């Protein structure tokens, strides 16, 4: 066996190794002004939605909305909200004359997987904008990635304060409302309905969204006189909540707040009802359950159990303004059922991005960001809305909803109790629940 280290062998190895190390540096990159500048007649958007995991239902609906938005941008279909949108620069010929194409990825509702799929869309497919997601953990992770890579991130359904709070990024934008707004809108309604001397028990999904929602609801309800008995964190992957429900029976709590979303909420609410919580009388008052963040998909999953339960939502298909009606009509024509709030926010985000590009006249993330900052618009289903420049959060009215007692169809499950005006849910950019982060400067990459 020849295992001597010879001079000739060493030279050979060195030469090969040296060539290998030098290889990546001898080529020069093509000159483009920013990451994935669209060169041909098309522009690629990346739709990163959960196709598996606890939020798969929302993900599927988001994808439908994106496909609809792409159709409308390319001038197919009936145009949907493009007809009601207050800004009129989009002409149905793609974005800046480039036909819109898209790629999809599965976030699996895991930060790692979501980043990997976003990365491949940026590096392989040349996506110039990433959007979607149904979890704040994922939104925060992907937003960070987009900031580093130099593309725009238009958040999908993400309700945590952190997304536009301590984890806000210059390249990231959120249309959806947040936990603080839910608390501010919901607390007055709750105290009106249930009184001011209630004792609340929180079950909270154990991640960024759950934490900030719990914080927001606790703060808002305590300010109006409620007491918080206990707050318990439950794992996101949990499917059976019985072991978390039984301890509630041992306390003198008379309200259960479920800071859960999607499949989590369906299961925890079902468990709570099975344990007879809603028929209980505590402290001489009816035991009540509150679900601060509500969606129609969840209401359908939980069936009978949602009747009479209060919560808040970003948008509901039964709204009667022109924008909502146009969107529900084109979504219903294409898919045969009304859209969810997740679908709505994703559809609107895509249109807002396209509009910002058209107004800026460029796909450059910095130009697009500038066009979105401080942008005021209407006709997108939420009334007058402002994209605040300080934290890239949209400010608009919030809906307080209730599970309908007598639903007329399988989609007619929620009724709007109150439209909380935007002034009541607005907060200062340096509010303690949002403090600690910085937008930084926009990154065009390349």
């Amino acid at each position, binding site marked *: 066996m020849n295992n001597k280290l010879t001079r000739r062998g060493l030279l050979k190895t060195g030469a090969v190794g040296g060539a290998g*190390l030098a290889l990546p540096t001898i080529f020069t*990159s093509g000159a483009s002004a920013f990451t994935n500048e669209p060169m041909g007649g098309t522009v690629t958007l990346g739709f990163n939605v959960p196709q598996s995991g606890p939020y798969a239902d929302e993900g599927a609906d988001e994808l439908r909305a994106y496909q609809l938005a792409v159709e409308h941008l390319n001038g197919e279909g009936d145009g949907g909200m493009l007809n009601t949108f207050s800004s009129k620069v989009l002409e149905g010929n793609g974005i800046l004359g480039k036909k819109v194409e898209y790629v999809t990825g599965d976030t699996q509702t895991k930060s790692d997987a979501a980043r990997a799929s976003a990365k491949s869309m940026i590096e392989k497919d040349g996506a110039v904008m990433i959007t979607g997601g149904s979890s704040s953990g994922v939104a925060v992770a992907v937003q960070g990635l987009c900031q580093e890579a130099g593309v725009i991130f238009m958040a999908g359904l993400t309700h945590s304060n952190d997304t536009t709070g301590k984890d806000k990024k210059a390249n990231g934008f959120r249309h959806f409302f947040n936990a603080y707004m839910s608390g501010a809108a919901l607390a007055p309604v709750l105290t009106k309905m249930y009184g001011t001397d209630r004792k609340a028990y929180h079950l909270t999904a154990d991640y960024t969204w759950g934490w900030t929602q719990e914080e927001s609801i606790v703060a808002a309800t305590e300010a109006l006189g409620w007491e918080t008995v206990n707050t318990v964190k439950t794992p996101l992957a949990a499917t059976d909540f019985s072991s978390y429900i039984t301890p509630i029976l041992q306390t003198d709590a008379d309200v259960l707040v479920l800071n859960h979303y999607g499949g989590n909420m369906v299961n925890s609410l079902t468990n709570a009802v099975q344990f007879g919580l809603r028929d209980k009388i505590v402290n001489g008052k009816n035991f009540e359950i509150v679900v601060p963040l509500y969606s129609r998909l969840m209401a359908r999953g939980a069936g009978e159990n949602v009747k009479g339960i209060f919560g808040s939502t970003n948008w509901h298909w039964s709204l009667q303004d022109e924008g909502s009606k146009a969107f529900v009509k084109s979504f219903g024509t294409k898919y045969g059922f009304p859209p969810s709030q997740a679908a709505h926010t994703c559809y609107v985000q895509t249109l807002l991005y396209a509009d910002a590009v058209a107004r800026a006249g460029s796909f450059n993330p910095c130009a697009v960001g500038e066009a979105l900052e401080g942008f005021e618009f209407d006709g997108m289903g939420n009334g007058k809305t402002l994209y605040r420049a300080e934290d890239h959060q949209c400010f608009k009215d919030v809906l307080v909803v209730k599970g309908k007692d007598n639903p007329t169809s399988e989609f007619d499950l929620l009724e709007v109790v109150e439209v909380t005006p935007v002034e009541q849910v607005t907060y200062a950019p340096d509010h303690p629940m949002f403090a600690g982060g910085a937008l930084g400067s926009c990154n065009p990459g390349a």
Partner: protein
Amino acid sequence: MLGLNKKDATLLGVVAVLVIFAPFILNPFPADSAMAQFNAGYPDLMQRFVIFGIFAVGFNLLFGLTGYLSFGHAAFLGVGSYSAVWMFKLLSMNVIPAILLSMVIAGLFALLIGFISLRRTGIYFSILTLAFAEMSFRLAYSVLTPITNGETGLQLTLEDPRILGQTATESGGIPVTNLFGLEMRSTEVLNLGGWSFQFNNGYYMAGALLLVAFYISIRIFRSPFGMMLRAVKSNQQRMNYTGLNTKPYTLAAFVISGMYAGLAGGLMASMDPLAGAERMQWTASGEVVLMTILGGAGTLIGPVLGAGFIKYFENIFSKINEAVLHSWFHALPDGLENAIVWVFEHFVGSGWHLTLGLLFMLVVTFLPGGLVEGGQRLGRLFGRKKDAEEKTATQSTPAE
């Protein structure tokens, strides 16, 4: 060369050539052709190929040589990632200290878990490692949130101290991971006709480490220590009866294997500075077992092939959606098109696990030696007889 016999040196050479020319090999289709869907030569996936290659090579040192099936190897990968990200947060964005720390911490962690788990063999050992990994996952996911940032994952912020580096760049961004100034994420693009080949710094650094890891693995396979580990696999009881204490050997193999996983974890964090708890979940541990068995347990090159195979499926097949399928079959009549798309859509997109499961089943049933055995059979079919004899010699046949 380098203390290897001719066959091993050739194998290392082949791996080196594959690693260096991967951007060409993995990008066979022009960027604007319909087949570009199947190109895998973009930085993120190439990095994953080599990083999971390292992970699987390390796992194979334990499983392939000693036969101890660890079901908790992802824990070491996760620990490595967390250590590396903390190094980026506290010390500097240079990847060297991060990777070193991730290997050291993963090694210590493996020493602790190995010391306890290796008291048992067979299925009990597997269950113990699985239990430890699940514990680590739960800890990272919720209990240790101050250290791991729970479900959101540990990320860099603009407020991190980074004593030896800078907290934020002049333009107000988070600095990027680098090797003495060479940015990990920067990529050179070479446009040749319709093809565009991407050369990424991070990939080449990870690739160089894969070669080192592969070389060390060959040396261990061929050493007396490796022989001792194989003896443990074939009959541990007999070794004990001859008065030999096998535990130091198995423990050493476990720790080395854990450090490989830590290296892989550190590299993952170096390429993309985020560490999520899911990296430690049992599904991630199961994945490396799949990679090793799919490629060929106990062989040198098998785990690398298996890692590449699974990662390719995860990243390429999962991206084929309904619209893509429709565009492939749009020439067919409508009814037929919809029927075919309906069948296929369950095997691609989010259904890629189904395809992987079927393939895994086929491989395990018909090629128990994994992809390497498949290659050998092909070689025997088409090659000369001499080749076949040589190939069996490069591979250590599994004892069971």
